[in-house]
């Protein structure tokens, strides 16, 4: 590179302050917590109903029931069948969504303010008086099974699924998708969904978040009127104690004919309450969470092995996975694994350079307001506060905590959290081409398994 002329680069002007919108919370007699987040200037309203009825709340013998319950909710109420419910909501310009993750089930919608009342009434009817029609259950179950087939045909999705399957031991539910394995979904019957709903979809530990444009008093009255009669409290989530299945090793998932290998390298990460949460966030930003991060710079911008490479944590109530990921040209699979391993293994060996630490902090601190540009983004921001019982000033102090991460803390997070002897390497690709080169790397034992 020739020498650069930096003299004409514009300096930033004085920053304008940004503050996450103030919110209030209110407890109804039935235990439901209502969060009101008025947003000045907004012309939309987002409503999210969060229930502690996610995959962590389901019995492992009924894996996938939480997800199927969430999906089946939108197929109508006792009063309105699936077609009528879709027509009633969409006529208002509302598309009700309902889904389930490990830590919660979430139903919600976004609407123009004048349809908030009608939308909330339909949402309340949906969660309290669901139809759970057996035919709709059979349809959604078959669709879910077919969707898993489709996902497994996609090399990237297959790599994600294979990585967690081989990462966690047999006693850790996180080793499978939150939506369940095909074998689990296959055994489910509509009564399982009814039972999951009756047990877990209760207001006791539920949260209703309303963000955007609305009249606070009216919204609260409305919540009382439509959800006040809902009763009970579910048992909530189980305690999950994640454990790894084994140490450092390689699993090749054979996908003949692949022109790329989908790589995942990582180990069991952190939970959402980990005191290293912020130092881990900053560390993973300079390691593989931005364009100029070490991993993307090396594998994409220097070597051209991939369209993009990244790494990151997935903290949940219990420790979710940490992984680095890249889709690389088949021929360079082994060198790409070697490069990723070096970057991961050396992450904790030295403190970050002062400019890469500064850039990671500036990036995370600077993009903060961008996350809250939409009412949906603001409503979603309440979810971790509600789900993980974080302090109400969480977002007001969020940037201070990013700023407080220092080089020693970031290095320590890397050293403690990216342990070389535990790294699992998963490669989804053509084993006949990539196997010998990967074995020659001497990373650890290499196992080749067929694609499911």
């Amino acid at each position, binding site marked *: 590179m020739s020498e650069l002329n930096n003299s004409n680069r514009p300096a930033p002007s004085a920053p304008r302050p940004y503050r996450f919108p103030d919110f209030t919370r209110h407890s109804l007699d039935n235990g439901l917590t209502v969060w009101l987040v008025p947003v000045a200037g907004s012309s*939309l309203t987002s409503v999210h109903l969060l229930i502690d009825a996610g995959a962590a709340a389901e019995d492992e013998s009924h894996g996938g029931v939480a997800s199927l319950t969430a999906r089946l909710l939108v197929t109508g109420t006792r009063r309105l069948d699936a077609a009528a419910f879709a027509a009633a909501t969409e006529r208002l310009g509302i598309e009700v969504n309902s889904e389930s993750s490990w830590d919660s089930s979430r139903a919600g919608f*976004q609407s123009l303010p004048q349809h908030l009342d009608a939308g909330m009434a339909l949402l309340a009817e949906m969660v309290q008086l669901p139809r759970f029609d057996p035919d709709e259950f059979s349809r959604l179950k078959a669709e879910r099974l*077919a969707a898993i087939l*489709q996902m497994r045909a*996609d090399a990237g999705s297959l790599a994600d699924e294979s990585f967690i399957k081989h990462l966690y031991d047999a006693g850790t539910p996180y080793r499978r998708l939150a939506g369940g394995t095909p074998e689990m979904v296959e055994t489910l019957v509509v009564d399982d969904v009814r039972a999951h709903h009756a047990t877990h979809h209760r207001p006791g530990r539920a949260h209703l978040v309303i963000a955007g444009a609305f009249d606070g008093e009216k919204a609260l009255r409305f919540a009382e009127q439509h959800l006040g009669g809902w009763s009970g409290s579910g048992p909530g989530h189980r305690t999950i104690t994640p454990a790894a299945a084994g140490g450092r090793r390689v699993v090749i998932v054979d996908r003949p004919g692949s022109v790329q290998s989908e790589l995942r390298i990582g180990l069991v990460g952190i939970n959402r309450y980990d005191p290293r949460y912020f130092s881990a966030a900053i560390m993973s930003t300079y390691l593989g969470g931005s364009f100029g991060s070490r991993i993307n710079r090396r594998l994409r911008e220097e070597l051209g092995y991939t369209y993009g490479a990244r790494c990151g944590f997935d903290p949940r109530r219990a420790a979710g996975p940490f992984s680095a990921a890249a889709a690389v040209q088949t021929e360079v699979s082994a060198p790409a694994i070697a490069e990723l391993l070096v970057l991961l293994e050396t992450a904790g060996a030295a403190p970050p350079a002062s400019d890469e630490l*500064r850039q990671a902090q500036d990036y995370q601190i*600077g993009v903060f*307001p961008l996350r809250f540009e939409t009412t949906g983004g603001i409503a979603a921001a309440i979810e971790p506060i509600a789900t993980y019982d974080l302090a109400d000033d969480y977002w007001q102090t969020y940037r201070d905590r990013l700023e407080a991460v220092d080089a020693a803390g970031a290095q320590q997070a890397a050293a403690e959290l990216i342990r070389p002897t535990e790294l699992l390497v998963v490669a989804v690709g053509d084993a006949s081409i990539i196997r010998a080169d990967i074995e020659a790397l001497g990373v650890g034992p290499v196992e080749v398994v067929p694609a499911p």
Partner: protein
Amino acid sequence: MVAFRRLPTRAPYPRILTAVPHIPIERHTLPNGLRVILSPDRRTPIVGVNLWYDVGSKHERPGKTGFAHLFEHMMFQGTANVAKGEHFSLVQAAGGTLNASTWMDRTNYFETVPSHQLELALWLEADRLANLLPAMTQEKLDNQREVVKNERRQSVDNQPYGTWDEKIQELLYPVAHPYHHSTIGSMDDLTAASLDDVGEFFATYYAPDNAVLSVVGDFEPAGALAMIERHFGPIPANPKRPPVPDTAIEPLIGAEIREVVSDRVPLPRVYAAYRIPVFGTDAFDALEVAVDLLGSGRASRLYGRLVRERQLAQDVTVMAFPIVGGAAIFSLWATARPGIDHESLTEAVLGEVDLLTDEGPSDVELERVQNLHAAGIESGQERISERADRLSMYACLFDQPERANSEVARYEAVDATRVRSVMAASLRADNRVLLTYLPVEGDQPGTEEAA
């Protein structure tokens, strides 16, 4: 700042009181031809910068497919003033997000940054328009060529059904038509791209008089305009740009084209695609309404009949590509549920298209899609990046940025008669490409483009 427009209530169905915000628009043109759109919104301290260059894959010459997109990558490789990789790191360290994309008609570049970093974003865009070539090297080109080849492998060749849009373009447009080839291009042409090509392409198309710059968000217009004049003003226009490629084409194909592809997919999928009137016409607006009637939401015709009632399809998707030359594309696809053969699915999908053409939408159906559309526009406009992109789009393609404020009105002006007439004119058997993906037997590689 935000004006609300109320629409009249129309019995018997409840009518959304559409409150789509009016986007303020201030237009300027610099002496070098750069069109500038300013749209202030001071609610959140962030600002979006968005540039559309009037160059896309339709401008590529034979043997150079994929070059417009490869060139877009080169725009991030540094200049006389910015090191390789630094464009990204400067914006990200400023607390911003950024990217770029290339399509048939255009290439866009965009950043969203905290508002006090507006000048950095403007300077970076102006700098690479003025100073790209002195820093260009063979090493950078070789690197990004490999990156783009891996982008193609990831999104097309190693992806189930990944070749569908490339094949639709090949079948819908005749050989040598500017839309006949895909934007990602062929591996051979990417291999052949040279440093001379980079220089020539840049000199030809990357000039201020071939671009639109939109700035949306938290800024003061006079100050922003002064910055724009300071950084973009000195960049010379290119008065010798070649004529726009001829995209003229027969409005109808003339005969149905069928193709079957064996791919590594678990379920058959059926694609239908049609030549339709171009983006910007009343007919295209009406076909967008047809898209939503058929495929948007759980109360749409294809979802309701094929996915829910008859359970023939796993999923359905309908879309109209906003293309401005010759003919645009209306496409839809349905994935078969396990055990459903592709012929039955094809017949059912086409039957629904024909039924809607014959009977037209009911008032209830029109009401539904109008309300979904209005809410969707509102939702999209919450993001300043989306507002900036639409202003640039309408300015670049039609020289009418104010069209960004009439999307809902244009949509709601479409009635059942217009839907029927445009569907009858375009969505017909002799104007149709039917592309069917079938699972290969056994564990063989899928069909992949010659690489």
